[in-house]
């Protein structure tokens, strides 16, 4: 049985159990009893498939999504849009910000026009890449021509702008106080922001459902802990049921 299946059933069972135990004092449920109850929980395969597809699509695993569609028959949105979106994300992750901007504008020119914060972060990333490549003069010119106006148009960007420009003041950029801007994590942050904006513009939820489901499981288990001792899933990656401590 798949881990996923176990997790989902666990969640459903816990929710049912918590309701039941409203009025009772702490109860102990043995593994045997628990597994029996789990077996009675009905989960539809289609729902699970949709969750998986939702995850693959939102995260941008195009080929996996296509293969999954072929093998499970689960529908998804037009793959071309996923491909486009992934190309943008990848461009940012590689530091090719100008390319990413062009792609976003081809996809939907409204996105950057209506998302000043995102646009600023992309321009900021461009500046960071210039500094990373040691192109100091170009960086200065860029900061003056492209970023300074953003700060003028919107004062809330000024602080971040100052931080970024501070990079130019240091000889050894990787060791300066704002050095974290040069990290891969900054690129990933920007890439994630663009990804979310594209998803929203395509009228999709920008976060996959699966993580929420897992969070729900953890929360539900914590709730039930107050009322009962029962087999818990402590390691989400294995979905192993651990015996209740008596």
């Amino acid at each position, binding site marked *: 049985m798949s881990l996923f299946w176990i997790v989902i059933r666990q969640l459903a069972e816990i929710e049912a159990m918590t309701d039941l135990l409203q009025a009772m004092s702490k109860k102990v449920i043995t593994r045997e009893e628990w597994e029996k109850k789990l077996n009675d929980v009905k989960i539809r395969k289609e729902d699970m498939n949709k969750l998986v597809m939702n995850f693959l699509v939102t995260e941008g695993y195009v080929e996996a999504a296509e293969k999954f569609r072929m093998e499970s028959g689960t529908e998804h949105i037009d793959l071309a849009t996923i491909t486009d979106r992934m190309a943008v994300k990848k461009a940012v992750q*590689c*530091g*090719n*910000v*100008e*390319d990413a*901007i*062009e792609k976003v*504008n081809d996809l*939907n*020119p*409204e996105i*950057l*026009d*209506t*998302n*000043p*914060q995102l*646009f600023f972060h992309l321009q900021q990333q*461009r500046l960071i*890449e*210039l500094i990373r*490549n040691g*192109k100091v003069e*170009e960086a200065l*010119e*860029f900061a003056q*021509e*492209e970023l300074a*106006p953003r700060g*003028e*148009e*919107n*004062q*809330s960007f*000024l*602080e971040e702008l100052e931080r970024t420009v501070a990079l130019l003041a240091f000889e050894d950029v990787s060791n300066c106080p704002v050095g974290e801007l040069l990290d891969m994590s900054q690129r990933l942050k920007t890439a994630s922001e663009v990804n979310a904006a594209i998803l*929203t*513009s395509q*009228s*999709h*939820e920008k976060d996959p459902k699966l993580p929420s489901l897992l969070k729900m499981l953890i929360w539900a288990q914590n709730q039930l802990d107050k009322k009962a001792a029962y087999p818990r899933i402590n390691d989400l990656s294995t979905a192993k049921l651990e015996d209740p401590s008596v």
Partner: protein
Amino acid sequence: MPSSVSPATSASRPSTDLVARLSSSDLQVQLKALRDIKNQIIGNRTKKLTFIKLGAVPAVASVLADAFDAASCCASSSDLVVQSAAALGSFACGVDAGVRAVIDAGALPYFVRLLSSSDEKVVDSGARSLKMIYQSKLAPKYDFSEKVNMDFLLSLLNSENENVNGLGAGIITHSCETSAEQKVLCDNGVLLKLIDFLEGSISQRDASLESLASVMKDNTEVTSKFVEYEGGRALNLLVKLTSERSTRTRLLACACLIIIRNVSPGYLKGKGIETKLICYLLELLEEPGQVGDEASFTLSSFIEDKEDLQKLAFDANAIDLLCTHLQKDLLQPQRLEGILLALAHICSRLEVCRAKLLPMQAFDSVNDALRHDCADVRAAACMCMRSVSRSVQNLSAGFFMNEKIVLPLLQLLHDPTLSVQLAALRAISNIVVDFRTRKSSFVRWGGVKQLVQLSMSMNPSIRSNSLWALKNLTFDADNKCKEGVYGELTASSLASLIGDPEPPVQEQALALVRNLIDGSLDSVQYVFAEDSIVLDAVGRQLQRASTAEVGMQGMYVLCNVASGGEVHKDAVMDQLLRDTKNSSSPFITQFLQSNDSRLRTASVWVVVNLTTPSCRGVSSRIGKLRNAGIISQLKNMVNDPCLDVKLRVRTILGQYMTFGDS
């Protein structure tokens, strides 16, 4: 894929050069130039303005026109169409000059034609660009009453393409203003279509929320249709949307519910929605960008003039939250304006709110905002000051009459923006009521001079509001203050203001005189100075009073004068019995017959004072009153519905009886 990041070189490619390339005969060159321009301007307001100045918009528009005409025969032309439409749309996005330029370049009809293309990308580009245009006030007004227009609109709403749906909704949001327009839209099934969209995709839903607000606004019929739709299903949907993930959806849903509530509070009663709305809006204040900016304005529109909602907001800790935001660094002007406005509204009626705000450190920020660069912020700060200065408690304590607060307000009396001037005047009007009679400070700071100057303004609102401030200043003021005001104003100005063409100005001028002569007997001299120029002006104005308020203030002036000695009472008699050319009955008789009880009350008080038994000459005055038919008029009023009037009439008739019919 290595790519040398060299934004500097493409940014420094002369923009004029790029614009010139748009007219190249080589389509590839054109396309590249288009894409370059498009990619430079998207998101970049400064660049948009630069290119607009270089005449890029008409150049791009002609590329669109040529490409469109050629589109059927040339595949690459559709690229040109899409790119040029996108560029034009971007020029129009949030930039007024861009919208104007795009409209002037004749691009709109082309956008419309793009909508019927078989190429989805072309349709998208046309729809998006038109949508941008319709987000601006400068877009042409859409006439819903024309059948062909309505059919077109419906086709947009019924399209499979979400961008096209969004365009339809955008047109409604832009152009639906009057109740007739709301009705014709509703009659054509638009309301139902919009309700459908609430369950559609995110973009359909958000666009629909905005449109619904404009279709339902202040319209009982349409709103009730919405509320009653399928037993309240649409309303429930709307309430659910207030807890959606997307902050923009939440804000729009709140705005919609507020519109419904403003039509009838009953629609939302008993569901605790009102408190929830306030809490949601207060949460949304945290959001960056447009959503956070607008949240405070939406909150203001909710609580404006509604004491019960202001109390709910107070209980929900709104003042603390707003003050926390107020003290943040680097607030965008729009956001600052919104917060100040919200504070102004929440403190407009409730003393608890004012009492909470005034001692807070954030109040300093309100004070500072009086000197902000942006006119709207200054106006909002003044409104806030006006609200808090309604606090009788603090006026009594002399809280406001200090340099820190008054000097910036006096500065604003000369503000280049009219709305700021008016807002400052209103705040000052409250502050000068100062009960601790520190009015001399106000005079010392040049306040009287400025107010008197403004009373000569070309603008009637400025005139009446400055007189209002002077009136409040002279309320219960000492002689020195009154002399100061009178001296600065001069009798002749006062007389001409009493005779001003605008009734509100006349009213305030008369009320000012009333306050001037109130109090000690000496003050009465003000109306007699310079050959009774002021008293004459009062009498003249009363003869042609066009509003009850003017009549009332004038009568109270006469009343105050008539509380003096024989000379004063006789002077009032003369005014009452002025020869008139048009009517044979004195104005007081007409006033006594007025439907407005305040006017009747003021008028009978004059007669009470004129017929005081202890004063010399009373019998001759009574004789004159009788001859003028005033006594018989009063006899008809012994059972006046207004108690004040009834009692005074009986007093007068009692006094009359003492002297008997002669």
